[in-house]
């Protein structure tokens, strides 16, 4: 009798030992929402938020409120589609809208993602140049590192290191408090929108929205939720909490980057053209070490996104066209997948090596590009989420529809205005 009891206790012990390990893995994995959000504050993000703060002070900070709302709505749609349909976004676009729409969407997406990968390499180059490492050294080594990740399949463990290092962004929040801003002024700036129609301001708005709600991120997020999901109702609640939490975190960090830059760089009248100038924003916290802190944060963020973005691009495109896409396959078994991955990395890596490229500008412009692509993807998403044959009872409700179509309309208006006024500026008769 005693023997049996002991045996069953031992069994329970072993069981728990195994379970504990499962729990540990779960903690390490965390939600796709928080991972996506961390990857969202990449080189392009840091550059755009810093530029916005330095250039326009607090006058753009209000945009983060509607953007946060948009981010939550859109990511929730992704989560809902992922759990209910069990399919990725490009998969759904292909099945619902056919080859033509899918093809052109993918072409535009690949171009935008190439731009953003370029920005990540620009971030790597800029960060390491602060450490006095030449870009002709850092970029080729980064390319080798990214290739090694895929070949060795150690992707998962490296991802966690990057994710942990994303904690560095807290330094912006701390600095934000250290500069002891006039909080009433900040609050006022948050709730009273300043809208200007000069092209640089409009373009900056597009960039801000584009970097916060990047199209590539939506594809990545939905794919990661699908990957974990079982198509059950309770997964939806978990995913919702996860993406809302992630969205709030990313927007808070973004707001604090802008705020910090506004109170340091903008007040001092510093224009950012080099990464070293952007680093000055952290001076109140780190003093002489601000350069190091900034460089390390920028490097980590860029490397993190650079390790996700080309993979995500390759997955998205291959999924849409039904090509083999898995890191478990050999090159000859999934040529399109690996081809696209290598193409993205090598092309953007090589472009960044062209002498004299303005790195910060590249980071910024790539995000404007994402912002311009965003409405197209959003139209597909809102149509899909309203498709009752696909979503069943989880199709969008009336209120959500008004908000989402309203946001899409506002975004299209913003993009058209930005492109129109910029084009007007460039026309010869204005000169």
């Amino acid at each position: 009798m005693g023997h049996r009891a002991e045996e069953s206790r031992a069994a329970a012990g072993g069981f728990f030992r195994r379970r504990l390990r499962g729990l540990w893995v779960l903690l390490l994995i965390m939600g796709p929402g928080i991972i996506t959000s961390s990857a969202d504050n990449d080189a392009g993000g840091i550059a755009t938020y810093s530029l916005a703060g330095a250039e326009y002070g607090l006058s753009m900070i209000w945009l983060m409120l509607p953007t946060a709302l948009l981010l939550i709505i859109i990511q929730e749609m992704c989560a809902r589609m992922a759990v209910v349909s069990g399919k990725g976004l490009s998969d759904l676009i292909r099945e619902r809208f056919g080859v033509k729409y899918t093809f052109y969407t993918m072409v535009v997406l690949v171009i935008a993602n190439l731009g953003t990968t370029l920005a990540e390499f620009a971030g790597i180059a800029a960060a390491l140049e602060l450490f006095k490492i030449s870009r002709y050294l850092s970029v080729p080594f980064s390319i080798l590192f990214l290739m090694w990740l895929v070949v060795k399949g150690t992707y998962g463990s490296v991802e966690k290191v990057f994710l942990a290092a994303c904690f560095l962004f807290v330094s912006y929040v701390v600095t934000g408090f250290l500069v002891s801003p006039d909080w009433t002024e900040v609050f006022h700036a948050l709730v009273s929108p300043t809208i200007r129609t000069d092209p640089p301001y409009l373009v900056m708005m597009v960039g801000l929205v584009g970097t916060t709600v990047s199209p590539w991120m939506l594809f990545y997020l939905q794919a990661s939720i699908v990957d974990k999901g079982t198509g059950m109702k309770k997964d939806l609640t978990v995913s919702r909490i996860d993406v809302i939490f992630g969205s709030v975190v990313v927007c808070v960090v973004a707001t604090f980057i802008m705020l910090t830059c506004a109170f340091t760089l903008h007040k001092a009248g510093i224009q950012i053209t080099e990464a070293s100038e952007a680093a000055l924003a952290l001076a109140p916290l780190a003093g002489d070490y601000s350069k190091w802190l900034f460089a390390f944060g920028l490097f980590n963020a860029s490397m993190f996104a650079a390790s996700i973005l080309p993979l995500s691009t390759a997955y998205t495109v291959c999924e849409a066209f039904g090509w083999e896409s898995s890191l478990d396959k050999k090159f000859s078994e999934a040529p399109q997948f690996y081809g696209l991955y290598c193409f993205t990395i090598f092309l953007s890596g090589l472009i960044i090596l062209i002498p004299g490229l303005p790195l910060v500008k590249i980071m910024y412009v790539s995000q404007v590009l994402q912002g311009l692509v965003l409405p197209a993807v959003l139209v597909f998403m809102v149509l899909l989420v309203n498709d009752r044959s696909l979503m069943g009872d989880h199709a969008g409700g009336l209120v959500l529809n008004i908000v989402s179509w309203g946001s899409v309309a506002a975004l299209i208006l913003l993009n058209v205005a930005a492109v129109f006024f910029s084009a007007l500026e460039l026309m010869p008769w204005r000169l």
Partner: protein
Amino acid sequence: MDNSRPAWLYLSNLLSRKVLSGIEGTVLGKLRDLVVSLDAPHPEVVTLIFRPLWSTKLSCLPWTDVDKVDPSGIILKPNRTVPIPLSEQVLSPSHVRLKEFLLDKQIVDVHGAKVERVNDLQFVQSNGKLVLVAVDVGIRGLLRRLGFEDHVVRFCEWFFDYQLKELFISWHFVQPLADLRRLRLQVPMGELSKLHPADLADIIEDMDVHERTAMVEALNEEILADALEEMDPKVQVAIMRALRPEKAADIIEEMAPDEAADLIADLPRDTVDGIFREMDNDYEEKVKGLLVHDEDEAGGLMTTQYLTVTPATPIIDALAHIRSHADEADVIYYIYVVDDQGKLLGVVNLRELLSNEIFTPVERIMTTRMITARIDDHAKDIANLFAKYGFRGLPVVDEEGRMKGVIRFKAILEVLAPYLGK
């Protein structure tokens, strides 16, 4: 009309063609979809669905009303019937809308054991009938849909001297996945269950959750258990969590206990509780016994479904014992000789049993110098033993030499696989 060469037609070319009433006739509308009947081995188009001019509602007509398919449009017979509005009732359960349920969707290529996406559908036209022969999963199908096929094909030939190949899967080997709940009644799953479990596992891994659920409902537990053993742990967990506990327990009982223990260890608590409640008590004991051990220790690698006999058993009885337990035992090449305390005395393999006189007691022919593993031996050491001695199964014993289980070569292979170069 020239009937010597079969006329190929593609769905992409047919869709959005005009539907005309007679050669010079008026335009009724534009073709939106075709419906095939899956009753016959060669699915024939039975209905055409079109959108009438100035209307948003779809209408349909039987294919027998079609006079001929012309580049200018689909020309109807003069004595055709009146189009009826499309509704669920118009289509019988074995009738499938091609654009809605096949085009751009995923299918299983049963022959190549792969999940593919349908780029186009190929028909052959004979005697006024339109028969679905193959699905196009190649690059040319994609280009055809985009309207670039001719240009790209010609460019490739001129510039690279390369002929872009067609990639078709014959309809015989196609298992559609969209709307599987309805379709599985019509298309036999038989072809799928004939696949090697590892291939079936790959296919299921490529499916989305709903397709997986439908698939799991359609296949029997034995086949599923075999396939499940070959699957990625993440997918195993996803499938198990989505199943009813009874069904999950039934499937797990068909698995080898060591595989089952590995799977159960990865599942969330509430799912495990539900499964154990439904599980057969004997089997539950076995699995729980294995759960005590770490996954990379001998105890976690071994199976408890092996065969034992007493020393005095004659060969003929030992063979009968194998025969009667062959379907549930995980190890049948070796039969282990134990005393009444369960202490391991020796081992006899199948070759020895077959090559000796049938009334010989097994103790006379058994091997007594045995390599065994302890319950807490590490996988690495066990792998070395397998590499050195080249056997198929390694018995596991406790401190008193009592037999606890057998590690199969397969279990070690799974431990080693990640270290093998790609």
